[in-house]
């Protein structure tokens, strides 16, 4: 059995999919896996050698952690999060786990302007792992101030810290099933439902209230039209097993990769469950 999938919207960091015949719990598992279990690269440890700026070390370290790093190639290249986490706790910054990013910045005492250091100024040890955006300010320096640090990035998962989550939005929604009883409806004399609809789903066509076919996916099922209708002619329901999945990434991975990777992670979890059942002798 195949699902029906249609791409409704697509850009470099955002995709909107229409899915038919997929059970809600399956779709929700995939969605939650995307948020919490797909690995990406992010800075985890920062070692400061000099910091005479007005910012505390931990403030800068926190900002660095939140900078999205390109992780497309890193997923194959580096060890999985579970192994690297241990290495990080023991302070072993090995090359098979960590990417080193360093930055040295100084505003000479003789200058009379303020210097801003950006994410693009970070020098990376692996060209495949670099900040997605070059213009994120890290710190500002007034004359005479200096900063120098080494930052170590590793793979991690969203469940450990949200900075490792590859998505900023992963959401699914129902699709409305709007039925209009033309015997009860008093259009075009009454257009209350059209006037109250916040998403402009309803239109008047041939003196009858109709659902605009290209706007139907925008319906939020708020049911304001139901309440507004004095004649109880409009009824809002939702279509069974038809959903819209919206994924917006942070730029670390492409939406396609996030979806495929989430399915892979989910699959391996189910496989390990089956393996454990076999080990216990519950199944063959």
């Amino acid at each position, binding site marked *: 059995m195949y699902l029906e999938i249609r791409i409704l919207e697509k850009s470099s960091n955002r995709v909107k999919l229409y899915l038919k015949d997929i059970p809600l719990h399956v779709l929700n598992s995939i969605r939650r896996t995307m948020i919490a279990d797909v690995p990406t690269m992010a800075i985890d440890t920062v070692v400061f050698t000099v910091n005479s700026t*007005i910012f505390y070390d931990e403030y800068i370290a926190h900002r660095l952690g939140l900078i*999205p790093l390109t992780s497309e190639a890193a997923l194959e290249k580096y060890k999985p999060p579970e192994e690297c986490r241990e290495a990080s706790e023991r302070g072993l910054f090995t090359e098979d786990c960590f990417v080193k990013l360093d930055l040295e910045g100084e505003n000479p005492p003789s200058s009379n302007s*303020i210097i801003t250091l950006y994410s693009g100024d970070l020098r990376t040890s692996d060209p495949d792992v670099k900040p997605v955006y070059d213009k994120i300010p890290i710190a500002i320096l007034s004359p005479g101030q200096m900063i120098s640090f080494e930052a170590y990035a590793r793979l991690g998962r969203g469940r450990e810290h949200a900075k490792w989550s590859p998505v*900023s939005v992963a959401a699914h929604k129902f699709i409305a099933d709007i039925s209009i009883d033309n015997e009860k409806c008093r259009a075009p004399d009454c257009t209350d439902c059209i006037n109250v609809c916040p998403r402009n789903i309803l239109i008047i066509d041939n003196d009858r209230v109709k659902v605009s076919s290209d706007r139907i996916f925008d319906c939020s099922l708020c049911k304001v039209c139901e309440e507004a209708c004095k004649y109880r002619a409009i009824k809002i329901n939702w279509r069974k097993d038809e959903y819209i999945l919206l994924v917006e990434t942070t730029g670390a991975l492409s939406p396609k990769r996030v979806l495929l990777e989430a399915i892979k992670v989910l699959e391996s979890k189910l496989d390990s469950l089956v393996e454990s059942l076999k080990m216990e002798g519950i199944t063959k």
Partner: protein
Amino acid sequence: MLFPVRCFTCGAPIGHLWEEFKRRVEAGEDPGKVLDDLGVKRYCCRRMFLSHVEIAYELLNFPKVS
């Protein structure tokens, strides 16, 4: 302090957009239109821009004692 790297609510990266936003608003453009143009759609991300105060630049006026 500095403009946040990400939106507090949804986690979308926004730090790289701040300087363009600031420049264009100071040049007299309507903040709402600039945000639409930059692709900042949700109101959680939009308030990050509209309510931000650049205190870090004030702090630079004070000498650091240490």
